[in-house]
C-alpha cells in the first residue's frame, strides 16, 4: 500500500474559479444512464442524507444504510449553535473570501486552500436549499433571515434555529431523502451496520453489513460506496457524542487500504458539564455563547474548599482575564480548554470531584439584571439545572472541557474520494476542511456542502468509467471472503466470556487516550500509551464479557465490535500525535510551546497532512505526507493576549 501516491487533485488556477473549472472538467453521466448506476451510502446524518437525496434526485439508484432505527437519529441532530454562510446579509463586510480566511486561520493553517474556498462558496447555496426545504431559521420582524455571531469571526454570519439548528437541518435533509424513499429511488435499511468494505482489483465494489435485529450478515454491491459515518470522539469514552457514535466504518475502510489523515486532530470543547461520577455515560455541552457574559474563575488557593459565594474576590483567580487580557473569557476553544486543564491539574478544580472551573454569571446579573440574563440564556440555565440540580443563577456553573469533534478522518482528494478508488468519505468522517481546529458553526456547513453540492458532481466522474458494467455480483469470492472473515470475528467476540464488562474496558481506554492524547500531549506519555494500548487490547480480548448470541438484538456485541476498532484507532492517534512535533489547533504538544504556554507551530516541517496506511500492526502504520501549499493566505501566529 505504501506505493499509493497521494494526489489531492487540487485544480490549478485561481482559487475563486477552481471549483467551477473543475466541475466543467468532470465527466458527466447522461440522465438515462444514471439509473444504471448503483451507489451505496452509509450513514444518514447531514452528509449521508443530503448525498442520498441528491444522488437519487439525479437518477442514481441509491442504497442507504443506518444502524439507527430511523435516519433522523443521526448525531447531526444534536448540533446546537448554527451554520455559517457568507451571505453578508448584515452588510458587515462578510464575503466568501473572509469566510475562507477565517476557516483557514481557525484551522491553524493545516487544511487545503482549495477545499476550504469551495466550502465557503457553497455555504451560500446551503442556506437557500435549507430555507426552501422548510428549515425554520430564526427571522427578523421583517420576515428576513436573522444572523448571530460566533467564535473565531468578526462578522455575524451564523444562521440558526433556536438552539436546535442541527436538528432542523437534519430533518430537512432526512425529509428530502424520505421523499426519494417514497418514490422508490432510495432503498433504506435501518438497524443495519456496516462491518466491512469489499474491494476487487483495488477498488471499492460493495459492503458487508450486519442486521442488528437478526444478526444476519449480508453483502451489497454497487458502483461506488460513500461513507458518511461521522467522527470518533467516543474513543475517549466520555465525549459530547451520542452513545453509538463510532469509528467502525472508517476504520474498517482504513484496514482495507484507505489512508487515515491526521487522526490526532481532535477538538476539545471548553464548556461542558463536568463528569458527576464514575457512572457518567456521556458529557453534555453547554453552548459556547455562555462565555459572552460568564466569567471563568477558580479559587486562588488549591486548598480553598469554601462554597463559591463565600470566596471573596481577592481569593479568586479569574485566570483567563489575567493571562489573556485582550480576549479575556472569549479566547478560542483550544486556548480556553487548555487553560482550564492547567488550573484543574494544579489542584484548583472545583466541585466535589475538583474536576471543573466556575463560569459565573453574578457580575452579568448585577450589570444587566436577571431578566436580561434570562432572556439570553434561560434554556441553557434550565438544562444545566436539570442535569446538576444546581441553580446557575444562584451559584456559578461548573464547566470543564470535553471531546467534541474530530478534524481527522479518512484522507480524501478534492473529489472526496479516499485512497481506495470508488470509496468516498463525507462530513466529519473525512479530514478535509477544518485543519487542526474547527470553528463553531462550520461542521453543519461542511456536511451539507459535501452531501448536497460536492459529491453529486464528483461521483459522476468516477462512475462514468463503468458505463454498461453491472456492479460486481455479491456472489463474487471477494464478498464471500469478507463475509467469512466477519463471521469469524463475530464468533470470536461472542466467545469472550471473561470477568469485566465491555463498557468497563471502554472507560479504561478512554482514560488512557484522554490522559495521554487529550488536551495536551507529550512524547513520554504518547510513548507510554503506544506501548500500553496493545496490552490493554489483549486484556480486553481475554477478559471482557459479551453475553447473549448473535441471532437477535445484542447491544453488548455491537459495543464490543466498535470498541475493538476504537482500540486500534487510539493507537493510530497516539502514533500520529507522537509524529507531529509541533503544536497546532487542537493538537498541543507540551514540548512545543512558548514560555507563556502558547502553541508553537513548526511550519517548516509540518505544513503537511499526515496520511497513515494500515500495515497490519496498528502501532506501526506507514506514513505518507501531503504537502499543503498556501498561495493565497499568509501563515501567521495566532495571539489572543
Amino acid at each position, binding site marked *: 500500500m505504501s506505493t499509493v501516491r497521494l494526489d489531492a487533485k487540487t485544480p490549478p488556477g485561481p482559487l475563486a474559479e477552481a471549483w467551477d473549472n473543475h466541475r466543467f472538467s468532470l465527466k458527466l453521466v447522461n440522465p438515462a444512464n444514471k439509473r444504471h448506476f448503483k451507489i451505496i451510502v452509509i450513514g444518514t446524518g447531514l452528509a449521508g442524507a443530503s448525498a442520498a437525496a441528491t444522488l437519487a434526485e439525479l437518477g442514481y439508484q441509491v442504497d442507504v444504510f443506518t444502524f439507527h432505527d430511523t435516519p433522523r*437519529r443521526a448525531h447531526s441532530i*444534536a448540533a446546537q449553535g448554527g451554520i455559517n454562510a457568507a451571505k453578508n446579509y448584515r452588510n458587515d463586510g462578510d464575503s466568501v473570501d473572509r469566510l475562507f480566511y477565517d476557516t483557514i486561520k481557525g484551522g491553524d493553517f493545516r487544511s487545503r486552500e482549495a477545499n476550504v474556498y469551495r466550502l465557503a462558496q457553497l455555504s451560500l*447555496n446551503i442556506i437557500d436549499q435549507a430555507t426552501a426545504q422548510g428549515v425554520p431559521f430564526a427571522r427578523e420582524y421583517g420576515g428576513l433571515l436573522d444572523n448571530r455571531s460566533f467564535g473565531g469571526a468578526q462578522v455575524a454570519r451564523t444562521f440558526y434555529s433556536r438552539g436546535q439548528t442541527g436538528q432542523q437541518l437534519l430533518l430537512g435533509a432526512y425529509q428530502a431523502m424520505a421523499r426519494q424513499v417514497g418514490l422508490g429511488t432510495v432503498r433504506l435499511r435501518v438497524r443495519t451496520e456496516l462491518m466491512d468494505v469489499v474491494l476487487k482489483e483495488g477498488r471499492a465494489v460493495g459492503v458487508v453489513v450486519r442486521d442488528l435485529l437478526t444478526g444476519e450478515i449480508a453483502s451489497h454491491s454497487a458502483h461506488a460506496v460513500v461513507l458518511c459515518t461521522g467522527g470518533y470522539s467516543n474513543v475517549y469514552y466520555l465525549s459530547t457524542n*451520542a452513545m453509538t457514535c463510532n469509528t467502525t466504518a472508517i476504520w474498517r475502510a482504513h484496514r482495507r487500504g484507505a489512508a487515515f489523515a491526521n487522526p490526532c486532530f481532535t477538538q476539545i470543547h471548553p464548556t461542558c458539564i463536568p463528569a458527576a*461520577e464514575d*457512572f457518567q*455515560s456521556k458529557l453534555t455541552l453547554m453552548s459556547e455563547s455562555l462565555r459572552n457574559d460568564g466569567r471563568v474563575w477558580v479559587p486562588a488557593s488549591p486548598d480553598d474548599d469554601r462554597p463559591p459565594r463565600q470566596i471573596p474576590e481577592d481569593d479568586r483567580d479569574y485566570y483567563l482575564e489575567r493571562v489573556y487580557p485582550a480576549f479575556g473569557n472569549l479566547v478560542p476553544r483550544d486556548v480556553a480548554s487548555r487553560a482550564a486543564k492547567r488550573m484543574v491539574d494544579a489542584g484548583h478544580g472545583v466541585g466535589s470531584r475538583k474536576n471543573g472551573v466556575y463560569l459565573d454569571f453574578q457580575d452579568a446579573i448585577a450589570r444587566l439584571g436577571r431578566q436580561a440574563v434570562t432572556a439570553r440564556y434561560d434554556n441553557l440555565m434550565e438544562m444545566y439545572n436539570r442535569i446538576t*440540580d444546581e441553580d446557575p443563577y444562584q451559584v456559578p456553573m461548573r464547566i470543564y472541557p470535553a471531546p467534541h469533534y474530530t478534524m481527522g478522518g479518512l484522507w480524501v482528494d478534492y473529489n472526496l474520494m479516499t485512497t481506495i478508488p470508488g470509496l468516498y468519505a463525507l462530513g466529519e468522517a473525512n479530514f478535509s476542511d477544518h485543519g487542526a481546529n474547527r470553528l463553531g458553526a462550520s461542521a453543519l456547513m461542511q456536511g451539507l456542502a459535501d452531501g448536497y453540492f460536492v459529491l453529486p458532481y464528483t461521483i459522476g466522474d468516477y462512475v462514468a468509467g463503468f458505463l454498461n458494467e453491472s456492479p460486481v455480483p455479491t456472489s463474487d469470492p471477494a464478498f464471500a471472503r469478507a463475509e467469512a472473515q466477519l463471521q469469524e470475528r463475530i464468533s470470536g467476540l461472542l466467545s469472550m466470556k471473561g470477568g469485566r464488562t465491555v463498557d468497563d474496558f471502554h472507560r479504561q481506554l478512554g482514560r488512557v487516550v484522554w490522559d495521554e492524547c487529550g488536551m495536551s500531549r507529550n512524547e513520554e506519555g504518547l510513548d507510554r500509551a503506544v506501548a500500553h494500548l496493545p496490552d490493554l487490547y489483549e486484556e480486553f480480548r481475554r477478559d471482557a464479557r459479551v*453475553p447473549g448470541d448473535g441471532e437477535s438484538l445484542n447491544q453488548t456485541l455491537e459495543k464490543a465490535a466498535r470498541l475493538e476498532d476504537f482500540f486500534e484507532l487510539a493507537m493510530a492517534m497516539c502514533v500520529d500525535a507522537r509524529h507531529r512535533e509541533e503544536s497546532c489547533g487542537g493538537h498541543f504538544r507540551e514540548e512545543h510551546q512558548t514560555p507563556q504556554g502558547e502553541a508553537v507551530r513548526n511550519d517548516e516541517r509540518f505544513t503537511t497532512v499526515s496520511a497513515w496506511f494500515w500495515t497490519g500492526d496498528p502501532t506501526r502504520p506507514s506514513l505518507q505526507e501531503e504537502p499543503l501549499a498556501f498561495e493565497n493566505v499568509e501563515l501567521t501566529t495566532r495571539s489572543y493576549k
Partner: protein
Amino acid sequence: MNITLRAWRQAGPSDEGGFETYQVSDLSSDMSFLEMLDVLNERLTLEGLEPIAFDSDCREGICGACGVMINGRAHGPQAATATCQLHMRSFQDGDTITVEPWRAAAFEVIRDLVVDRSAFDRIVEAGGFITVATGSAPEANLTPVPKETAETAFDAAACIGCGACVAACPNSAAQLFTAAKASHLNLLPQGGAERYVRTERMVDTMERFFGSCTNHGECEAACPKQISIDFIAMMNRDYVKAKVNSRGNA
C-alpha cells in the same frame, strides 16, 4: 439510594415476555434514569445474565431514540422531559419503579424495551417534505416569512419523533406526530404549494398504522417538546379542505 425495578423482559417479537424484578442499590440521585439502567446492565452482565435492551443515543433529549413507560407515564413523571434527561432525584429512596416498552399495535416490541417505530418514517415518506430538488432553491431571502409564523412552525418542527404521543394515547393514535410534521411545513410559505396533498397523504398513511384521535390530550402532556394539540386541529382542518378541494383525483 436503592430502588426496586420491575422491568419488562422479552427475548424477541414472538416471545410472550413478562416483568422481572431487580433490586438496584447504591445509586446516586445525580444519575440519569438511563445511567441507572447502565449500572444494572453491567451488573447483570457480570452475573451471567443478559442486559436489558433499550434504545438511547444522544442522551441530550434531542435524538428521540430513548423512551420508555415509567410507572405508567411516557418518559416518566417529569413534564417536558425525555427519558434520558430524567434523573433519579425524581424518585424516592425505596421506590418501586415499573418500566415497560411503548405499546401500540404499530410499535412491535423487538426486545425488552426496544420497539419498532418505523411507521413514523412511512408517514414522512408519504408527504412530510417540501419538494425541492437540490440546486433548484431560490435565494433564501426572496420569500419573507413573518417572524411569528416561523416561530410557530418551529414549535411544531421541534418534534423529536420519539413516539411518546402514540405510547401515551389510549387509542395509540399518531395524530400529534403527524400534525407536528404537517403543520411545520404547511405553515411556511415554502410548503404552501403542497399543503393539501401533503396533509391528505400523511393522514391516509397514518391511519394505516394508528388509531384515531378522541381528544384526550394525553399526547400533549407526554410530549417532551410540549407540542400543542392545536396542531392536530390545524391538520384536521387542512384534511377536510384537501378532500373538499380535490377535484376527483382521489
